[in-house]
């Protein structure tokens, strides 16, 4: 074999051994998926959005399949900050994978409180601030689609931690790069794009929404072209590291995101279908790089050729 390819990446100070991250809400707290895959080889795990207090989540039905996609309205079901620290972090510590903690909240104060409390946890190497969950009444898209809220959240969270801050952006907007710009201006280290698209589906026989919450978030291969366009838009307009997310099923999709501007990427829905996808993607990236004579994977980022 040829010489070793350097897969490591640095996303605004967050150093990962490779660009493969497992997306928030699609790996739980690591336990169950560790039956299927070697988490210690994965670049980073992003934990399920945690909020100050536990959330029960939405009543069923929470998910429905759509063409090449799925809608979910989990409603940020999570164990809450305290139980996260006491019950979940110990397992995640053992895993020996870089940990990014995703935080969701319904007020700026709650974001700040969560970040402050978790800042002391050594195991957590960075924060992903979820300002874009489409499935909760408070917070969620009310923040995510409002530039000044996103700016203020970034600013206030920045004030309480020195660890890398990633703001997870909503795609349900016409100008995602302006959101990325405000994140940069307020001291955020990176953005992740995209969270799910708002979608809905009806049962034609009883005329009820298939998702109890009426609308849900669309993920999976269906949204990949939209996500690629959003990453590209940010990449062309704003100088900030981007974590690409949306419909990645294999290493080819991952390479596409990196070419379009991503420094790293997250895989979500694919974990449900192939919980070992992350490892397979790492292998695919290595052989792609060696075929393309790429020595360091970071060369791929924003390597698009638009003539």
């Amino acid at each position, binding site marked *: 074999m040829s010489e070793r390819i350097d897969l490591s990446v640095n996303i605004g100070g967050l150093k990962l051994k490779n660009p493969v991250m497992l997306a928030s809400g699609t790996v*739980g707290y690591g336990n169950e*998926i560790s039956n299927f895959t070697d988490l210690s080889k994965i670049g980073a795990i992003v934990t399920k959005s945690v909020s100050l207090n536990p959330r029960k989540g939405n009543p069923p039905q929470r998910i429905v399949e759509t063409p090449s996609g799925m809608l979910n309205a989990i409603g940020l079901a999570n164990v809450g900050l305290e139980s996260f620290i006491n019950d979940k972090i110990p397992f995640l510590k053992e895993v020996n994978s870089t940990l990014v903690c995703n935080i969701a909240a319904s007020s700026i104060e709650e974001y700040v409180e969560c970040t402050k409390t978790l800042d002391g946890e050594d195991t957590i190497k960075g924060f992903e601030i979820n300002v874009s969950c489409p499935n909760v009444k408070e917070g969620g898209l009310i923040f995510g689609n409002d530039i000044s809220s996103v700016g203020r959240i970034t600013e206030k969270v920045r004030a309480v931690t020195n660890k890398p801050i990633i703001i997870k952006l909503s795609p349900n907007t016409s100008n995602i790069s302006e959101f990325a710009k405000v994140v940069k201006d307020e001291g955020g280290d990176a953005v992740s794009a995209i969270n799910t698209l708002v979608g809905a589906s009806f049962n034609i026989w009883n005329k009820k929404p298939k998702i109890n919450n009426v609308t849900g978030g669309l993920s999976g291969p269906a949204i990949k072209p939209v996500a690629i366009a959003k990453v590209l838009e940010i990449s062309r307009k704003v100088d900030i590291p981007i974590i690409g997310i949306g419909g990645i099923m294999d290493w080819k999709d991952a390479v596409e995101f990196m070419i379009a501007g991503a420094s790293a990427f997250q895989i979500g*829905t694919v974990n449900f279908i192939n919980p070992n996808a992350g490892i397979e993607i790492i292998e695919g990236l290595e052989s792609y790089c060696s075929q393309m004579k790429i020595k360091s994977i970071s060369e791929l980022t924003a390597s698009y050729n638009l003539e």
Partner: protein
Amino acid sequence: MQISKIPVVALEQLQNNVFLLKARSKELAEKSSPGQFFNIKVSDSYFPLLRRPFSISNVENDILTFMFDIHGEGTKLLSLKKEGDNIDLIGPLGNGFNLDDDFDTAVIVAGGLGSAPFPLLLNKLSKEKKVKSFVGGRSKPNVITWKLANVNIATDDGSIGFHGNVFQLIKKHENIFTENKCKVFACGPNPMLKALQEYCLANNINCELSTECAMACGFGICQGCPIESSDKKSPYKLVCKDGPVFNAKDILI
């Protein structure tokens, strides 16, 4: 709990719209217990996107059998599998039926495709136990009695057996609950499970229900499959991980 690719040895039509998919794996056969399920990839592409959950219907030596009907795109593709194909499946998943309780008579209650998990259950049941089965369906072709014992049948249209639903049929045989130390094992549509649950709780009959729910992952990472716990203070349980089989007293249907 693992991802496996195992060879299909047969795809048989049991009756009407009901198929049996048989596949070989010694390892999975040994690990499988009644009421557990596998999450099966029905195509080689990502269309349909999600896996489809199926109960383990039976295990004979190293052959696993799944029983299904054609419901939509996914089950249609499954029905096209043939000997020599490989199927990709995750499992065995979830918690199955508990056969270690103190009972002398197993009362099987199945509605429609709800008959699926019981061949394996009867297989694993200690030979000393008695079995009484109640099987319901819309009409004669929907009644599945494959490998069941001591079967009483109910059909909505009366085309075979008792004219009415399976719960009404059970009520007509109420005496079995007083004459034996029974445990009820049920699988079928929600209204059936609900009626049975109420009845068993009211009459203090030990009862396990196999539930269904839309699933994405099948092993606890998506939180897509909640079911209300009867303990109002505790959060939802997950059908895939905490179930799919629950004791009637633990959940709200």
